[in-house]
């Protein structure tokens, strides 16, 4: 079936540094979303991409359907960025299903 492999599973960053999260897809996906789970457990939408890149503040995401991957770059990490990040992808031909990655637990340290 459609699978989403998300890495790393856990990441520790010092304030002010940056890194990238990645999701690889085993099949062609038509779109990808990135979420952050907040302290109350709610999924906060970060990005929705059908192609290309999007940037919002210190976050930037890219999606390449042909190469079957998506990335989320965080720069100048702040303490409040700590949390669990998920990618989720829509298989080609389906507007309805959404397959989630296993999540990346990000800890930003002073």
């Amino acid at each position, binding site marked *: 079936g459609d699978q989403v492999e998300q890495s790393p599973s856990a990441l520790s960053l010092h304030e002010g540094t940056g890194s990238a999260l990645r999701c690889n897809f085993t099949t062609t996906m038509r779109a990808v979303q990135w*979420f952050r789970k907040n302290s109350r*457990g*709610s999924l*906060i*939408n970060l990005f929705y991409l059908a192609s290309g890149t999007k940037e919002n503040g210190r976050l930037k995401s890219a999606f390449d359907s042909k190469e079957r991957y998506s990335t989320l770059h965080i720069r100048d990490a702040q303490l409040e960025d700590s949390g669990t990040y998920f990618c*989720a992808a829509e298989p080609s031909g389906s*507007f309805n*299903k959404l397959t989630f990655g296993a999540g990346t637990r990000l800890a930003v340290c002073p």
Partner: protein
Amino acid sequence: NSKVIQTPRYLVKGQGQKAKMRCIPEKGHPVVFWYQQNKNNEFKFLINFQNQEVLQQIDMTEKRFSAECPSNSPCSLEIQSSEAGDSALYLCASRGQGKYFGPGTRLTVL
């Protein structure tokens, strides 16, 4: 971020009892989804529907789960006879540009 409303936030039931949770999707989003998230952060698609019609559902939901989305009323997901393995976070999402998730109903089956 998301305006999807889910109630109740927490639900505790005994085995064999009915468990019902509700969702009000974002206004103007005709497609509604239910997902089950377990304690390992794994997401399982359960059912989705559009304008009161079921689009897709997995086998589990065909047997013990029922969902409906009547016009002018909240959508609902009901487990007819709860089992211990049903303990999870149940997430409702509606579709705009990408999916917007509610905060979830955490079901505990004792």
